[in-house]
Every structure is written in structure tokens, then in C-alpha cells.
């Protein structure tokens, strides 16, 4: 088989850089460890540059096992950007709270590598292996604060639930292979399209796959692990879980459902739509009762996963655009919120919602970014959240799932309430101390960039939508 290894350049670069970080760590004296995040950042940016060598190509490797197309390129660039923000956001936190920064950044880079291959997977087992590499990185990262019992508990919980869901997923994959005799996405689609009655074993496998992914994307009722893990994990890792993990899982799901399961759409649409509705309702309702801001955001991100599932349930060109658009908008807003929370934790060590009382007087800039991010998550106009939700909901409505849109709009209204409770603390609460909080220059830059992204995607989404349209054009859509 003739393989064009040039198409793997980004993956090679990333794997190499991950090893470089691990190796350099061995030789760096203790007082130079703060160089590590910058080395990791250089690695990520270098990889991002190398992605442009494969931009615009549309090729299959190993008989459809590994795909290089616009969809993969879009997500690679996006996820690398998330990774870069992640490194910037965690540098200060890691220095203060965690030991062994070398492995932290090394594992982080490996997880990015896993995400890159996940977006390119065109076959069930490649997808599964990438997912496992990604999950294992996250298991370690979640329990990285080994001196904090909560972090260890989070890691353990995450491993157990993750292993359980992987087993279910793998069983589902084997049923699909057993019934259709192929594991490539296009092969599955062909087998389904040529078959008038869909084998029962395939349906069982499909359900198990949905359940397995349900754990990863925190769909209700497979979400129970998320709040505990989100609360216990080191805060930057929580941000990473909430943003990168969701984004990449949905990228994979969208490719899987569009390219492989498309012909069986009538079978799975009600299941996905039902999951989406349950996820939206429960995530948003329970978020109202939270006092810890990380837990609150955990439930809110469950609700957001529900909105994203709507895009899968609708599965049309417009809905896929909406899904990608919402992933980007949600990621920007959620990351902005987490960047504020990380910075606040670095400064004060606090993470209860009531601790944010009077933030606007101690640190007005951070208050503004955090409020903007929360309003964006709620879907208020001007911010990205409105544009993305509008696009996604309208596309879903176009497919005739109007009831689901109504559920989602109601969920958004509820979500506004709990976001407002935080904003109320920020602007109306009386601060315990008056002295202003000082942010480092890099934090200001990070918050500014993310805050600007949240507004720009909301006000001028045109260029982003153009890119998204190019990315989703490669997915075959059921008619």
C-alpha cells in the first residue's frame, strides 16, 4: 500500500513535541520549570502551522481508515487553538498548585494528539483507539492534584465510569461489525443503504454506541459522573473537560452519524432527540441548585451538550453548520468563563458562587468578561451564544423538530436564571475585602482575547460560518 506520509505531518509534529516536553523536563533545573508551558505552546503553534500543509486536501489513507479533509482540518485548527488557550490558562495554576509540570504538559500534548486523530478517524476502531488515548490522558490529568482528596476521587470516578462506558462502546462496535461485516464509516453506510431491513444486531450495537458516547458527552442519564469530576479536578482540567472533550466527541459523533449511520436515520433520530431533550431539561434545572461555580458550570455544560445533541438529531447541512458553530461559540464562552474562574482561584483560592460577591468592584475587567461569557452561554444577543443558538435552533426547526426547539428555548430561559444569580453576585454583592485584585499581563491578554471572541462571533459570524460550511461540505447528508 502506498501511503503518503506527508499527510501525517501534524500528528508527527505533535507526537514529537509531546516527547520533547517530557524529555526537556528531565534536564530542566527546578527553577526553570516555568519554561515548560512555553515549550508546549510553541509545540502547539508549530503543529497548527503544519496543519496548513494538509489544508484543502481531501484524501483517504489505509482504505478509509484515516481521513484528511476540510472537516478534519477545521477541527484540528480549532482544537489546537483550544489547546493553546488551555496551556496559557493553566500556566499560573500549575505553577502554584501542582507538582511535576513536565508530565502535565506532556500528557496535555498527547491528549491533543488524540483529539487530532479522532477528528480524522474514518473507521470505528481508529476512532475507538483515539478516544481511549484521549480518555487516558484525561484520567491522569483529572487526578493530577494528588494531594487533594477531591481530585483523586474525581480521577477514580472518572476512570471507573470511563472504563465502563468504553466497554459498552466497544461491545456496541463489535455488534455493528458482526452484523454488517465492516468497520469503515463508508462501508457501514453502504451496507445499510443496500439493505431494506436493518439487522437487529446493528440496532442493538447502535444503541450501545449511543450509550457509550452518552457518557463521554455527559448526556442525561449518563451524566452522573460529570459534576463530581468537574468539581474535583484541577480547574484548568475541568475547563479542558468541559470544552475540548465535548467538542471533539461531537466532532466524532457528527462524522460517525453522517458518514456511517445516515441511512438508518429514522431508527436513531427519536433516540437522540429524546436524549437531547432530557439532557437540556435536567442539566438546566439542576444547575439552578448549585452553590459551587464549577459544579454549576458542569450542569450548565450538560445542558449545552443537550443543545449540541439536537444538531445530531436533526442532521442536515444547516444543522451540522449550526452544530459546529455552536461548538465554537460555546467553547469560546465556556473557556472565557473558566479562564476567569481559574484566575480568581489563583488569586483567592475560592470557588463558591457566593465568593464572587462584589467582583465588579475588585476587578471590573474580569467581572465584565465573566458576565459576558455567562450571558453568551445563556444565549443573549450580541454575544456568540445568541447567534450560535439561533443558527442551531433554526436549523433544527427546519427539520421539523419544532418540539425540541421549544424545549431548548425553555431550557435557555431557565439557564439565564442561574447565570444571572452569578452575575448578581458579581455586580450587586458586597465584597468581603475591598482591595483590588491584580491580574497578570498574560491573564489580561487571555481574558481579553476570549472575551473579544465571544463578542466577535456574536456580532460578525460571517467568516467563521464560511469556514464551517467548507468543513461540513465533506459530510454526506441523508436526504
Amino acid at each position, binding site marked *: 500500500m502506498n501511503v503518503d506520509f506527508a499527510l501525517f505531518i501534524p500528528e508527527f509534529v505533535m507526537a514529537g513535541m509531546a516527547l520533547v516536553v517530557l524529555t526537556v523536563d528531565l534536564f530542566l533545573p527546578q527553577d526553570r520549570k516555568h519554561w515548560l508551558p512555553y515549550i508546549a505552546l510553541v509545540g502547539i503553534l508549530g503543529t497548527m502551522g503544519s496543519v496548513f500543509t494538509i489544508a484543502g486536501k481531501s484524501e483517504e489513507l489505509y482504505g478509509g481508515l484515516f481521513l484528511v479533509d476540510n472537516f478534519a482540518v477545521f477541527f484540528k485548527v480549532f482544537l489546537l487553538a483550544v489547546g493553546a488557550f488551555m496551556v496559557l490558562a493553566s500556566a499560573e495554576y500549575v505553577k502554584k498548585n501542582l507538582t511535576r509540570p513536565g508530565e502535565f504538559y506532556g500528557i496535555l500534548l498527547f491528549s491533543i494528539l488524540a483529539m487530532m486523530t479522532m477528528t480524522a478517524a474514518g473507521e470505528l476502531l481508529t476512532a475507538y483507539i483515539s478516544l481511549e488515548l484521549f480518555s487516558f490522558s484525561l484520567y491522569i490529568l483529572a487526578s493530577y492534584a494528588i494531594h487533594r482528596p477531591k481530585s483523586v476521587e474525581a480521577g477514580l470516578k472518572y476512570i471507573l465510569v470511563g472504563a465502563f462506558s468504553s466497554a459498552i462502546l466497544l461491545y456496541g462496535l463489535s455488534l455493528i461489525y458482526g452484523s454488517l461485516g465492516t468497520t469503515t464509516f463508508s462501508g457501514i453506510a453502504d451496507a445499510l443503504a443496500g439493505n431494506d431491513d436493518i439487522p437487529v444486531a446493528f440496532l442493538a450495537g447502535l444503541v450501545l454506541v449511543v450509550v457509550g458516547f452518552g457518557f463521554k458527552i455527559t448526556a442525561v442519564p449518563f451524566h452522573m459522573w460529570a459534576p463530581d469530576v468537574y468539581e474535583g479536578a484541577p480547574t484548568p482540567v475541568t475547563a479542558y473537560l468541559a470544552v475540548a472533550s465535548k467538542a471533539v466527541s461531537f466532532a466524532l459523533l457528527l462524522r460517525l452519524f453522517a458518514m456511517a449511520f445516515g441511512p438508518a436515520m429514522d431508527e436513531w433520530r427519536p433516540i437522540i432527540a429524546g436524549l437531547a431533550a432530557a439532557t437540556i431539561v435536567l442539566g438546566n434545572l439542576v444547575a439552578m441548585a448549585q452553590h459551587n461555580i464549577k459544579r454549576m458550570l458542569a450542569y450548565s455544560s450538560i445542558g449545552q451538550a443537550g443543545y449540541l445533541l439536537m444538531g445530531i438529531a436533526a442532521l442536515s447541512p444547516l444543522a451540522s453548520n449550526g452544530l459546529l458553530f455552536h461548538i465554537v461559540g460555546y467553547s469560546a464562552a465556556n473557556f472565557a468563563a473558566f479562564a476567569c474562574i481559574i484566575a480568581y482561584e489563583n488569586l483567592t483560592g475560592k470557588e463558591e458562587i457566593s465568593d464572587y460577591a462584589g467582583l465588579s468592584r475588585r476587578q471590573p475587567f474580569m467581572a465584565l468578561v465573566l458576565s459576558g461569557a455567562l450571558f453568551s452561554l445563556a444565549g443573549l444577543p450580541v454575544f456568540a451564544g445568541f447567534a450560535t443558538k439561533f443558527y442551531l435552533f433554526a436549523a433544527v426547526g427546519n427539520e421539523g423538530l419544532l418540539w425540541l426547539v421549544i424545549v431548548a428555548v425553555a431550557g435557555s430561559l431557565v439557564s439565564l436564571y442561574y447565570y444571572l444569580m452569578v452575575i448578581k453576585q458579581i455586580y450587586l454583592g458586597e465584597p468581603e475585602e475591598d482591595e483590588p485584585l491584580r491580574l497578570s499581563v498574560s491573564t489580561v491578554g487571555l481574558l481579553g482575547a476570549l472575551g473579544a471572541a465571544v463578542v466577535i462571533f456574536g456580532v460578525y459570524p*460571517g467568516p467563521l460560518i464560511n469556514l464551517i460550511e467548507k468543513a461540513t461540505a465533506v459530510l454526506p447528508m441523508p436526504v
Partner: protein
Amino acid sequence: MLTAIVFLPAVGAILMALLARSDRQVRFLSLLITLSVLVLALVVWATIDLDDPNPQWVQRYQWISAFDVQYFLGVDGLSAPLLGLTGLLGVAAVLISWGIKHRTREFFFWLLILQTGITGVFVSLDLLLFFMFWEVELIPMFLLISIWGSGRREYSAMKFLLYTMLSSALMLAGMLVLYFSAGTFDMIALRDAPPSIALITAPGVFFLLLAAFAVKLPVWPFHTWLPDAHTDAPTAASVMLAGVMLKMGAYGIFRICISLFPEVARDYSDLLVTLAVVSVLYGAVMVFRQHDLKRLIAYSSISHMGFVLLGIASLGQVGMTGAAMQMFAHGTITAMLFMVAGLVYEKAHTRHIPDLGGLASRMPLLTIAFMIAGLAALGLPSMSGFVAEILIFLGSFGVYREATILAMFGLVLSAGYILWTAQRVFFGPEKPRFAAIGDVTLVEAAPLAGMIAAIMVVGIYPSFVTDFFDAGLAPIVDLLGAAGG
């Protein structure tokens, strides 16, 4: 040009927040910004061509092309005076807040953002853009009430927010149904080529949209947020709320409900008239039960907004012009009443009417201001309120005789409560505890003088404004005529 008018306050607010070095600079910069907006708004108003029924000063760009969402701004005879009114009240709100000491920078920041939202509503010609601006105004108002308000401010702010949020969700639903039926959010295109509504019935959409506007206007029984919000808001927020924000509701009914659904409006005009009369009388009667000066004015607003709805529901040129006039007149009059109430509170430290009394000898200028605004509110000839009300009654009498007569009682009641209030607050024996308070300062008097000028000029020479409303409403009247009846 319109973009400049809409976004100048917001951009200015951000620059001001970042650059101003002292509270003094904040105040002067805000004044500068609002004054320039006023000048620009007046230029637009003055250059409108009344013979052209199409929107003017149009700015139009594709925004989200997949859903044909446009950035589409324009003004016509209906929106131009409201644009001017917003500009005027923007300046007044800044001046009346000159004495704000608590978190000054933030206060003016949010006040300016608020102005962007309100102005945007009046000039958007794309439904989704309209909705966005409609929502923008929420957050600043919520914060203005809850941080700088008085009394149960957090409760009132939350109530305001919840009412508006829920109703605007209904509005968005209505707009989406329109979109799915017509494939566009363009108000002009929707007006010219009414879509056949497939998903739910046309009246269904009409009432979804009306719900949001009725809450904003407010119409009984959706009014309960208003007395709380107005009472507890700081003066500038009350001025903006009563002066222009309520008008957004009426404007929406004109621009969206009636323009897009003339038939439905005809079919359900009885219902609208009933709600209007109930609002007029309920508001007026409730006024007599109030002891808080601002709450009293708030209820009188409900009553006066009832007149607006009555004029709208008459669905004729005269009555609708009257309604639009009432929007403009009430904007200046009530804004002025709230300013006076705010000044009374600032100086006498109470708004409880039984505690007040005999202020006239201490603050003669403020008393004169209140009397002028009050007399205008009760419809004294030569003031703007009179023109508006006479047009409304002329327009509606032919169509709804009984309702008009009932509504006229509201006017009688308003004469009663205005004079009674004036007597209790400003006249009567001088009270010793107010011996030390002084009259208004120059900065405080300036916006009052501006309002008086607006009230008198429009009252004496109404065609300044009526010509514009006439021209702006003519296409809507034609639509109603085409809808039969």
C-alpha cells in the same frame, strides 16, 4: 449615519470607561456623547422626505446569510420622532444623574449602553436585529435598577427582567414562525408580501408578538412589573423607562403586529379596545391609592399608555396618529414628571406624599415644572398631551363610541389626581422640616427646561411632529384599508 446614532453611545461608553480619569470627566464625556447623538438624530429627523413612504437613511448588509438575517436600519415618519425623543431623553438622563456619586463610571456606562439598545429598536427593519436590540436594553436596565435603585430594588429589577425575558421569548417564537413561513426576517418584505402562516394560525403569531409588546407597553393585566420597576429605579432609569422604553411596546405594535397582520388586527380590535379602556381606568383609579410620588406617576403612565392602545385599536389614520403623538407627548411629559419626583426625593429625602407638603415656597421653580408637566399630562390645550388625546378621541369616537366615552373618564380622573397631588406635595402649609432645602440648580433645571420647550412647542405647533407620524402611518393605514373594513 443611523449606525453612528445607534452605536455612538455604546462605543463612547467603552472608551469612557477605559479612558476617563475622574468622575467629572465621566459626566462630561457622557454629556458630550449624548449631545452628539441628539444632534445626529435631529439631523436625520429634519432630513426625512415625507413624500417617500420607503424607509430612508437605509443601511443594509447581509449578516447571517444562511438565514437571510440582515443588518438593516432605516427610518421613516414613524420612527424619526421617536429617534429624536430618545436622543433628547438621553441627554436629559445624563443631566439628571449629575449628582450620582455611587459607582459613577459604571452608572454612565450602563446608561449609555441602554441608549444604544433603545435607539436600535426604533431603527431596525429586520426582525432578528429588532429582537437583538430589544434584548440589549435588558441588562443595563436590570443593573441600573438593582444597583442604583431604592426600596426593594433587587426584587423590582428581577421582576422586570423575568417579565421581559418571558415575553420576549414569546416574541422570538413568533418571529421564528414568521421566518419559517416566509424565509426572511425583512420587515419590509414581510409587509409587502405577507406569508401564509403554515405552522400555527396567523392570530397565533400576532398574539405571540403582541405579548411582548403588551408587557412592555404595559397593558393591563401585564402591567405589574411597571410600578415596581419605575418606583425603585434611579431617576435616569425611570426617565428612560417611562420616556422611551414603554414606547418600544407601542412602536412594536405599529411596526410589526399591525403592519404584518392587518387582518388579524381588524378581527381582534374589540379585544384591544377593551384592554385599552381597562388600562386607562384601572391605572387612573390606582393612582388615587398611591402614597409614593413615583409609584403614583407610574400608575398614571399605565393609564396614559391605555390611551395609546385605544388610538391604535381605532385602526384609522387620525386615531393612530393620535396614539403616536401620545407616545411622543407622554415621553416628554412623564420623563419630566419623573425628573421632578427624583429631584423632590433628592432634596426632601422622601417620596411619601403624606410627609410632603408646602414645598412651593422652598422650591418655586420645581413647583412650576411639576405644574407644567402635570397640566400637560391632564391634557390642557396648548400642550402636547392635549393634541395627542384629542386626536385619539376623534379617531376612536367614530368607531368605538362607548369605549371612548369611558376612556374620557380617565382624563377626568387624571385632572383630579394631578391637581390633588400638586396640592398635597407642593402647596399647603410649609413644613418646618423642609425649611433648609433649596431649589433646583442650573444643571438640574436644564433638562426640565428642555422638556418644557418640547412640550410647549409641540402643543402649540403640533404639525412639527404630527406631519411625520401622519406620513409614517399612512402605509399602515393603507394596509388596514386593504384588509377590509
